[in-house]
């Protein structure tokens, strides 16, 4: 079979809107396949948060959460933040770092890939996997009757938590652009784990450490969830500040990532 002769005058230089949407969808599909097939990532990221939630909130602190339902809501929110942030951070951050090391981003820059399609795909998958990790926790909490809130509140809280993955997507991008392949998971943990504790998400902090909680994105996202749930007892900063914190971190992390990508590719 012969090659199709090329009509040099007839190359359309720009993708039609339909083909453009197709390119984005294809990119998302491939990214999702990669994440699903990467068992080393998918299992801990999707299963660990719900397992920890069941262990801590229902077994270890089971009496406390039964006595003060709001403590139960707070713990639910804390583990949900963990669930939504891990795929965003580790899925995006480490895979991006590996891809940069493999030269994949250089290849994409040379190919006519739509601008930022890989980025859109990563963020979409980060959010989707966050949702997948969150739903079992929600189901567990509802089944164990640890979410004594109005349905509207639960819905608002769920939406907030899922959207709360965005700052962590940005954080993942930043880590993925700053560090090289194999060291990225280490650095991601270095940034991520202290935040889980120092933001006061998992256990109450002494008063002298309150000042530093705003430097952790986890704190702001958790606070947003507390506002969405309407749990006044655990609202430590005004809604506006929490939103500003979450948006601010997203902007900061994204800016670093974009700047770094523009320089290093």
């Amino acid at each position, binding site marked *: 079979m012969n090659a199709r002769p090329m009509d040099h005058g007839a190359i359309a230089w720009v993708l039609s809107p339909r083909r453009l949407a197709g390119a984005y969808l294809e990119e998302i599909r491939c990214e999702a396949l990669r994440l699903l097939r990467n068992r080393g990532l998918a299992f801990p990221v999707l299963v660990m948060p719900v397992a920890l939630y069941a262990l801590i909130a229902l077994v270890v602190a089971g009496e406390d959460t039964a006595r003060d339902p709001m403590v139960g809501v707070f713990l639910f929110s804390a583990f949900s933040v963990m669930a939504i942030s891990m795929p965003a951070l580790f899925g995006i951050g480490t895979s991006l770092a590996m891809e940069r090391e493999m030269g994949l981003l250089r290849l994409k*820059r040379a190919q006519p890939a739509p601008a930022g399609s890989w980025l859109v795909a990563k963020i979409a998958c980060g959010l989707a996997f966050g949702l997948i990790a969150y739903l079992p926790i929600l189901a567990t909490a509802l089944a164990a009757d640890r979410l004594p809130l109005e349905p509207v509140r639960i819905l608002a809280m769920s939406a907030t938590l899922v959207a709360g993955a965005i700052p962590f997507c940005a954080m993942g991008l930043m880590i993925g652009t700053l560090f090289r392949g194999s060291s990225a998971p280490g650095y991601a943990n270095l940034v991520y784990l202290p935040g889980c504790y120092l933001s006061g998400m998992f256990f109450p902090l002494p008063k002298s450490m309150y000042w530093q909680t705003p430097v952790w994105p986890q704190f702001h996202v958790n606070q947003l969830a507390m506002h969405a749930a309407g749990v006044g007892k655990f609202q430590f900063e005004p809604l506006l500040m929490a939103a500003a914190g979450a948006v601010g971190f997203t*902007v900061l992390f994204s800016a670093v990532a974009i700047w770094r990508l523009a320089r290093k590719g």
Partner: protein
Amino acid sequence: MNPVDPQRLHALDAVRGFALMLGVAFHAALSFMPGWPPGLWAMADNSPSPLLGDAAFVAHIFRMTLFFFIAGFFARLLHGKLGAAGFCRNRLLRIAVPLVAGWVLLYPLISSIWIAGITKAFGGNLPPMPEAPRVFGAFPLTHLWFLYQLLQLYAIALLLSALAARIDRSRKLRDAADGLVSAALGFPMAVLLLTVPVALALMALPTWYYWSGIPTPDQSLIPQPVPLVGYGVAFGFGWLVHRSSTALASLARYWLPNLLAGVVAATWLLLSLRVSPMAPPGFPANPLDLVDGTTLTKSGFAFMHGVAAWGLAMGITGAALRFLSGHSPVRRYIADASYWVYLAHLPVVAALQVWVGQWPLHWSLKYPFILVVSLVMLFASYHWLVRPTLVGQLLNGRRYRRTDRAPNPPASPSPALPPGAGRGGSAPVASLRGITKTFDGITALDSIDIQAHSGELLALLGPNGAGKSTAISLWLGLIEADGGDVALLGGTPQEAARRQGLGVMMQDVELPRELSPRELVRLASSYYTDPLPLEETLRRAGVTAFADRAYGKLSGGQKRLAQFAVAICGQPRVLFLDEPSVGLDVQAREALWASIRELLAAGCAVVLTTHYLEEAEALADRVAVIAKGHLIATGSVDDMRALVARRRISCESRLSVAEVGAWPGVLDARLERDRLHLTASDAETVVRRLLAEDPSLSRLEVREAGLNEAFNELTREAA
């Protein structure tokens, strides 16, 4: 846009640096303010200083006005250079990112130092701290407020300039504004004109501590009207000065009268401050009553504050334009460092203030100590941690190497043969013209001219590190040349549309391990407007047999074929293949070659880099040899064959190098360790003559010159 003399920009850079460094000195003085209650600043020193109090007051009058004036000037310069979108991107990176990142890093430091200092000032017990005002938008911006203010002013400036472009199509309004600025810049009109809006804004303040001048908007994210007017006027004036062609000259001319007016006004303010530290509430009953006896009323203070601020700001700028124009490495360094130094100074300065606050020493020892130690720390951190790193890149727009040198000027053109015209002399679909590229001072390509034509395969040959991959990266738009033109399909490779006609197989790229070749090709096909059918691509690349196996489980050769499939799926008009056959077995390589020939027959231009001469022989129409960044030969494959058909002859002989070197057929002759080394195009004739002329000749050796040898020789010739 008027071109501004770069010499003058040096002066303005120096002024901006000065305004920021003055800020460090100002904050360093604030623990020595006489009469300030403990708690107002991080530390209340046990040796207050009236002199530092007055100096700080005077510095505070004008330093931010001066800063925003220069900022306005450079904002328009940048806006003209980058356009609105580029300007926004630039300012986001250089101002917004440092604001957010700086705040996140500095705020915890600053607040902990404040708590430590206030605890110390109150004898070890932290007094109850006043609650942060619970009003909408309240936010402790700290000294980074100036960045936030800048962002507001940039937004307003962009809005106004877009508006001006829309309603002032005939440019009459803007010409009138330019005329006004030029006419008003004489002394003392400019100072008075600029003073009026600032004075009116200050007068309207219900509670106004005279000392604070324009109230610092560091407690709220809501834009504050008085600073917006006060610093907006400065910024806008800077913007207009950049518009005007004569404004800088006027500023330089009237530097002394402006400065003197500022000094007189500042002195008067100082004296009046002794009488009354705070303005009576409300707008003055009669705003035209400027003095009460000899001391200033509220409106008088507001007016005189404007005169002092603008007199000093314009005087200092004018003096700099007059005396500091021209490049000075020291001033340049300080101006570059000042942004970082100012951003980072507050915790350092405050920590030192807290540390020395209760030492039983006079302020005249402690203040210089604070200043010197903090500046040493800040400049050292700049030099080693900022200037050569990404932080410096972010703040100053460029990163310096630790041992900074001027960029290498492009060397003279290499003595390459002019590249032959393509098939039928058609216009090239991809070309490099006069390309020079250096990496960290090492020249990767030096005045290279190469062209690729439709239906033609151009092989780039050369040893490792010759610059072949650099040439391909230039064509792909992955790097930019230092000099020369890169063309791809009638445009530049940076244009996304041009890349629709491009296919590429890169050397050190690994595709995602989890995906199969089929999925990879499907993804790459989705990028193109008119891709080949999926199965057809797989067939042509010879990957059908393993199309559904995960890429990570393929052999090295199979991976290369999968990459080749990705490269050809979009029916490219130009195909770049960087070492395509590395790792392929003979069969796979034959299949790859057949596929490449199909593409050539269809009119695709192929640029191929390779180590293997046989690959070039099998496919290439033209060959370009690159070595050490120089294009040392181009021509047909036959030309290359002639080049490589050279033989190396070596022997021990009594014949002299000069004599043998002159024989026909001898291209090169050298004597090394008593052995004669010859490079010959016609080895048989030369050997016959050698034996005939020197019967005692011994240890004769004749061998084919390898391609690498040919390269090396050519490189030596080229050098």
